[in-house]
């Protein structure tokens, strides 16, 4: 069965890509399986200079999910380009660079540099990291800022730009529309929901950063809702994510309107989850009456009224 999907900049063999931050720069998973199996790869966020990130503990388990507060740890854009990207040139899987920053200037600098690296086929503009005090989340919650930073990055990027949206907003469609107005080539959603766990024994938030980002199956209904709503206000291609761990989950995102589907947290539970999903996807598509992956995209909207309750 033909699983291929075509998104701006990303010619994908199948609609599956690991989500940013859950796959490092690919090296570790490359020891487990052939990265050429993947539709694409999103690498860990890059910032202008190296960041150490937050203190530990940085992760906590929650029911059907987890919290993380890594805090954008990365060696900085230059080192990523020198030390990490050459390895990825060994594969014919398109790479999407997740770009983060504290200021528009930083976003612009990183995007300008990294988009010029030959392995990078698209940029995912991370305006939604909840885990750093100045990590760009204000860009993800204020439509005007979202539009401005998107436009600034679009101007310098030599590859298509996907804007990664934060779910921690009253109206996701407003941010999606702002990104579109800023010239985004695509949207990526959802990043993590902000959450907290308190350690009963020492009576403090378990994560050193106190607040972290909730991901995993627990958030899937929120993610599906947001992809569905965003699909109704824009025609931009959507990379859907949030809680995916099975080929059925992938189909649910495709029906909701995603053109490709990213897998994050599930890699930790099952390190082979991406190739396994890719293997099972044809049977699942067939079971539900689809002849290929493209056919399923957006099909969850055909029976829908156009009017949705405002939420």
């Amino acid at each position, binding site marked *: 069965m033909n699983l291929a999907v075509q998104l701006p900049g990303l010619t994908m063999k199948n609609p599956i890509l690991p989500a940013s931050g859950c796959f490092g720069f690919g090296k570790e998973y490359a020891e487990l399986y052939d990265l050429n199996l993947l539709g694409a790869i999103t690498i860990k966020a890059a910032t202008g200079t190296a960041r150490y990130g937050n203190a530990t*503990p940085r992760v906590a388990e929650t029911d059907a999910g987890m919290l993380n507060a890594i805090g954008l740890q990365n060696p900085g854009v230059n080192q990523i380009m020198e030390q990490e990207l050459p390895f990825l040139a060994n594969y014919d899987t398109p790479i999407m660079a997740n770009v983060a920053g504290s200021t528009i200037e930083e976003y612009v600098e990183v995007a300008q540099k990294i988009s010029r690296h030959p392995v990078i086929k698209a940029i995912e503009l991370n305006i939604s990291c909840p885990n750093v005090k100045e990590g760009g989340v204000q860009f993800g919650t204020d439509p005007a800022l979202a539009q401005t930073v998107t436009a600034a990055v679009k101007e310098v990027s030599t590859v298509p730009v996907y804007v990664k949206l934060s779910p921690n907003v009253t109206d996701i469609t407003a941010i999606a529309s702002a990104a579109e107005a800023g010239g985004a080539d695509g949207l990526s959603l959802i990043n993590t929901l902000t959450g907290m766990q308190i350690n009963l024994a020492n009576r403090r938030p378990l994560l050193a950063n106190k607040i972290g980002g909730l991901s995993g199956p627990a958030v899937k209904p929120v993610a599906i809702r947001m992809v569905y709503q965003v699909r109704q206000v824009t025609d931009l291609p959507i990379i859907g994510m949030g809680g995916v*761990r099975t080929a059925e989950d992938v189909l649910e995102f495709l029906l909701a309107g995603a053109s490709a589907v990213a897998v994050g947290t599930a890699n930790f539970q099952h390190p082979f989850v991406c190739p396994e999903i890719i293997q099972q996807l044809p049977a699942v598509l067939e079971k539900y009456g689809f002849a290929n992956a493209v056919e399923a995209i957006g099909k969850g909207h055909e029976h829908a009224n156009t009017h949705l309750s405002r939420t």
Partner: protein
Amino acid sequence: MIHEQLKIISKQLIAKDTVEMTFRGRMAQEKILPGQFLHLLVGEGTNHMLRRPISIAGVDRQASTITIIFKLLGEGTNTLAKAAPGDQLDALGPCGQGYPVDDLQLEKALLVGGGIGVPPLYYLAQCLKRKGVHVTMVAGFQNKAQVFYENQFRLLGNYYLATDDGSAGEKGFVTDIINAEKLDFDQYFTCGPTGMLKAVSTQLSNQEGFISIEQRMGCGIGACFACVVPAPDSANGYKKICKDGPVFRAKEVVLT
């Protein structure tokens, strides 16, 4: 590191809330150093999205078995403990870097373990003994009910026991024993709660030693940056415990 469904061949309670579990699998044929760990899937479905790291406490290549010892702490370890002989556990391993037994040049080793830090030291003691190294083990537990593997360690070398409440061995901490006994050794190897690691490495700061650190983990293979520890002299300023550790030279990392 490989991914395997390890078959449980035995399970027993060896101390209060402490389970010893032995698996059979081809993983036992991999090169496994003491200090390396298994990253174990817990339960079914979506209840546990994170695996649990548990140190390897013994390897029998001939029988093709691997042994772990773990304490019942929360939901994850309690679920693991429900698995029965015959069941399979989904494991990644051996993970991380262990004590570099092959490269070590020493005659006398001091091993200092606290609580669930003791298991990897048992496998280490076996490896060292096999190498002809003289082993002295100092084990610390909360109380008598928690003590395990006393006899096994005694067969491998000197053994000192401390409990917080004095219900077995000496009353006090492992550091008290190290102080009192003026133990003689070339290098030390320690594993246990962070407080103990700090106390031991401070006390022995003039000596060469290795420590093994715990931290909450995501991926367990170096991809997610959940488990970093500051390492000021390294290229990046940090190390990943799951991949570069959990064993480090004592002076390589800063305990937080």
